[in-house]
């Protein structure tokens, strides 16, 4: 089964498994609480209103850059990847998430507010992740 992330430490839970399988098919889903309507991305199985009946909804993956960093000294688990850009992006529905930003070539490409898109990226070892790319 495909796993999510460049690395992971958590026992593999069903939601993340489904999310990874969905990414393989090119689809990125968020979740929405059937009781209060609150939306979550990354997806959650449970709502803060303490309801656990959630539905999957499509995420509008266009985003704007909210903040970023370039990791030069990585944790042990990412030791071969540095330097890499970690960005926070905000989607049209107001939800925000963290992901690598790939495909920018100069600091001029890193303007706050710049348009991006969240896309799946297949990795080696049956892993998959989402990343931001310039839009």
């Amino acid at each position: 089964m495909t796993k999510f992330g460049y690395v992971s430490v958590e026992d593999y839970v069903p939601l993340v498994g489904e999310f990874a399988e969905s990414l393989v098919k090119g689809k990125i889903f968020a979740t929405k609480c059937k009781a209060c309507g609150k939306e979550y991305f990354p997806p959650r199985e449970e709502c803060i209103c303490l309801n656990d009946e959630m539905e999957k909804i499509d995420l509008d993956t266009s985003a704007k850059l909210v903040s970023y960093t370039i990791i030069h000294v990585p944790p042990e688990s990412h030791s071969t990847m540095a330097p890499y850009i970690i960005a926070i992006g905000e989607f049209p529905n107001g939800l925000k998430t963290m992901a690598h930003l790939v495909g920018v070539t100069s600091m001029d490409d890193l303007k706050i507010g710049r348009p991006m898109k969240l896309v799946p990226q297949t990795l080696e070892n049956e892993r998959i992740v989402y990343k931001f790319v310039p839009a």
Partner: protein
Amino acid sequence: MSNHDVALVAAGQSKFGKRTEAGLRNLVFEATKELFLKAENISKDDIDATVIGVAGDEFNGQGAPAAVSIDEIGLVGKPTIRVESACATGTAAIKTAYGLVKSGLHDTVLVIGVEKMTAVTTGKATELMARAGDIRWEYPFGCTFPGFYALLATAHMEKYGTTREMLSSVAVKNHYYGARNPKAHLQKEVTLEQAMNSHPIAHPLNLYDCSLISDGAAAVVVTRADLAKKYTDTPVYIKGIGSGSDTMQIAQRETLTSLKGAKTAAQTAYKMAGIGPNAVDLAEVHDCFTIAEIIAYEDLGFAEPGQGGQLALDKQTYIGGKVAVNVDGGLKSKGHPLGATGVSQGAEIFRQLRGEVEKERQVPGAEIGLSHNVGQSGQFVNVIIYGR
């Protein structure tokens, strides 16, 4: 009961640093021994219970660190409890002791904060601290601890025009005072040029923007105010405590230019103490990164939002400025043994308010000291206000 009915009556601290010769238990011993050596009229027999603050077991491998700690200092048989709130563990331990004393459950409590971090490699320590981010949605991207604060720094620089020089000014100040603190990990001054040009860790933060990975312990005795004068002529009272929290994932914060939990904590603590930021003579703030100190100035009301960098640049947080901040070197130069940090802030304020620190870093006539201790990137915040 009034607000000011719990007091600190003794304090001690180990040397902070890469203490290859000392294990967790030895650090506990060193801080506790100093506490009782310096104490005026208090002995181990006066201690009713202990609260032990340790952030992570993984750094040194010892499970149940409270048990090994009280065994080391001969307090076996008396109640103990271990407290954890990431990097805010130390103040969480003091807050727990405050509650135990104020409730009447115990009269006199010994609080020890300790962390033995350098038994693992820097890469491993970076890895363990990265796991304090959400292991499901943040850790998989390799966001380091400096990375989280770098995200705040980028946002602060973008919104307010905070500069590289402002960040480095914080490092220069904290090293200046750390060089004058014999307990500090890195007792050396740095120039603005050195601080600005050191190698990048997580852009825009470089080496001199980051606190140290240290070993160390600190201890204080917390007791009832009406017993305090029995133990010392000059107790230091806990006048206010406030706490706050924030979202697990940093991306989901309402703002990246302030710590919401710190603002809540500060407002609560000021209200309980019946004072405002202008009354603070010295502050121990959680400068795990230089940007964190700048944001702390703003969250604590020492500067308007966006003006924290200018406050640093204008040297207004040196002794003699608007408010003396981290004149023991802060996490940056004194070191940051996670569980010890908040207790060390309390121990430093205890000594400052009694006029007992090294002359060149003593804040003259200090009456009010504030401790600001942040866990992770704001998920835990405690602010404690101490007064004579």
